């Protein structure tokens, strides 16, 4: 998506964000805009506050100061009812899946539907099965318990739950971590396919360089407690900032880029 010619409205607008744990400041005056239909990745070294930023945006963590707007609505100091309405507009894929271990995959996907819609049980089961298929799982996966699934299937099942309410906005926390290269590549493709067919906006935290090259429109680099680089991957890797250079100039970073350059 070209930023200059298509100024799509911002789905997420973070302004002057401060977060801290005790006396440790995680973010200091951080700004970030994410436009509709973009796939944006948050990257940065360990402890740079990627997951914390994600948790602040999805209202799991109260920032110390600043403003976060989701779909144009301020969420810092938002009321319970407004937060509940807003929560059905986005889905979150947690790093470990966070599927409810006592429920089957189908029941897991049905939980948000049961909570947020008045649909009858039969229709909810049908919708859940569709989401399970959309996430690329075989049809018999719905009856399985989370502990019976492999790592890759677990991620897909968690994705199916995140997609349950047809959210316009999808958050992914390390979606390809712990997956084999084939599954990780398939997951990247799935994300791009879902984004294109469902018009999703996707925000993900990832360390996977292949994902960064294959699946993202823009990448926000977190460092020094704020966003120090925010550009498409091709431009970001040319950035001058020493932290960004160190991140992408390692042997793995170079290998991933060379692979992309050769493929094009």
């Amino acid at each position, binding site marked *: 998506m070209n930023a200059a010619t298509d100024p799509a409205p911002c789905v997420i607008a973070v302004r002057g964000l401060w977060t801290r744990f005790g006396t440790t400041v995680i973010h200091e005056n951080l700004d970030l805009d994410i436009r509709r239909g973009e796939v944006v990745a948050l990257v940065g070294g360990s402890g740079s506050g990627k997951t914390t930023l994600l948790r602040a945006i999805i209202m799991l963590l109260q920032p110390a100061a600043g403003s976060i707007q989701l779909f144009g609505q301020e969420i810092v100091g938002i009321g319970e009812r407004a937060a509940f309405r807003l929560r059905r507009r986005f889905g979150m894929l947690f790093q470990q899946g966070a599927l409810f271990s006592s429920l089957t995959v189908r029941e897991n996907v049905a939980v948000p539907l049961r909570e947020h819609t008045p649909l009858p049980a039969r229709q909810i089961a*049908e919708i859940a099965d*569709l989401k399970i298929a*959309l996430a690329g799982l075989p049809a018999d996966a719905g009856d399985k318990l989370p*502990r019976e699934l492999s790592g890759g299937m677990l991620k897909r099942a968690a994705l199916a739950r995140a997609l349950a309410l047809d959210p316009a906005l999808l958050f992914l926390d390390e979606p390809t971590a712990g997956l084999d290269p084939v599954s990780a590549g398939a997951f990247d493709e799935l994300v791009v396919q879902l984004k294109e067919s469902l018009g999703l906006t996707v925000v993900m935290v990832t360390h996977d360089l292949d994902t960064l090259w294959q699946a993202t429109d823009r990448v926000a680099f977190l460092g020094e407690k704020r966003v120090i680089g925010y550009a498409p991957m091709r431009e970001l890797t040319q950035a001058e900032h020493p932290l960004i250079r160190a991140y992408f100039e390692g042997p793995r970073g170079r290998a991933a880029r060379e692979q992309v350059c050769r493929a094009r």
Partner: protein
Amino acid sequence: MADPSSLATPSPAAIRYESNQFRCEGDWTLDGIEGLGPRLQAVNWPADGVELDGSGIGAIDTTGALRLLNLIAELERASHPARLVNLREEHRALLDLVRERRVSAGALAAAPVPPGALERLGRRVLYHLNGGWAFLTFVGEAAMALGRLALRPGRFRWRVLFSDIETAGVRALPIIALLSFMMGVVIAYQGGQQLAFYGANIFIVELVALTMLRELAPLITAIIVAGRTGSSYTAQIGTMQVTEEVDALRTIGIPPMDLLVLPKLLALTVALPLLTVFADALSVFGGMVMAQTLFGVDFSDFLDRLPKVVTLTSFLLGVGKAPVFAAIIALVGCYQGFRVRGGADSVGRQTTVSVVQSIFLVIAADALFSVVLGGVGL
């Protein structure tokens, strides 16, 4: 697609008959299709084929697309072959995606037939038999580990033992004190009323001392510890099982039995008899307070009579049961922890089972003690 970046309320999905055409209107989304069923019943379908005009659809998502496809299938079954026309390009793409995925979802295997009553009974019996066998195996393994420890005591983790004694013993003192004091008060009050009726107030000493020391104090202490410590053993080991910490211990070469079970077992075997003595003292004190305030037996009379009526045997019999109870609680607690499979719900279930089983076994063992000791005339 309607602007998903706004929070505007969706316009409800509907089908309207207009100038010889059926027009799909509104937002065919999760919100929009709410109450669509009744609205559809008002539509008069023609006798033959139907052409659905999709150009009026505002927004569509996978749920709406599924509903639309289901509608077309329903119409077909009612012999109104339906066709979607004039769909916007992106809407058609989404419908195609859903149609393609739905087929694979439709190929779902039928749910397995629920087992009959006899099969359920059989499975339960087998499950419990297996459980009992596995518990015996576990006790055997613990005994083997204890044997290995006796051969090489240098390898024992003393620091873990002492911290376990502190959590299971020292920290339990306040609650044991409170509850055993109250038990003493209750026994003295209930029994004392009957004794006062015959003017036999002084026998309150026998009543309180023998009941508490021999039976109630060991039992109450064991039950409190089963609820307080046994459950925490199960929850701790169970959670470690879920997070693969138990497997990590094995890989590093630390037998989980040595680190997780033996210190707990020994700690409780030390702590529970001491807690029982403490409970003995506090419950007798509760009885003394009651005897002095309500039944005119003051402290000096009570303490004077106490050593004459309480033999060492009855005191030791009470305290001697405590190590057995301790072993039951620790072994059941740890065993149920290792039985945890999967996730959070399993931890909760095994913790419940652990407390219920250890209290049951403690009471059963107490009954066995009574029968056996009665048999040998103690």
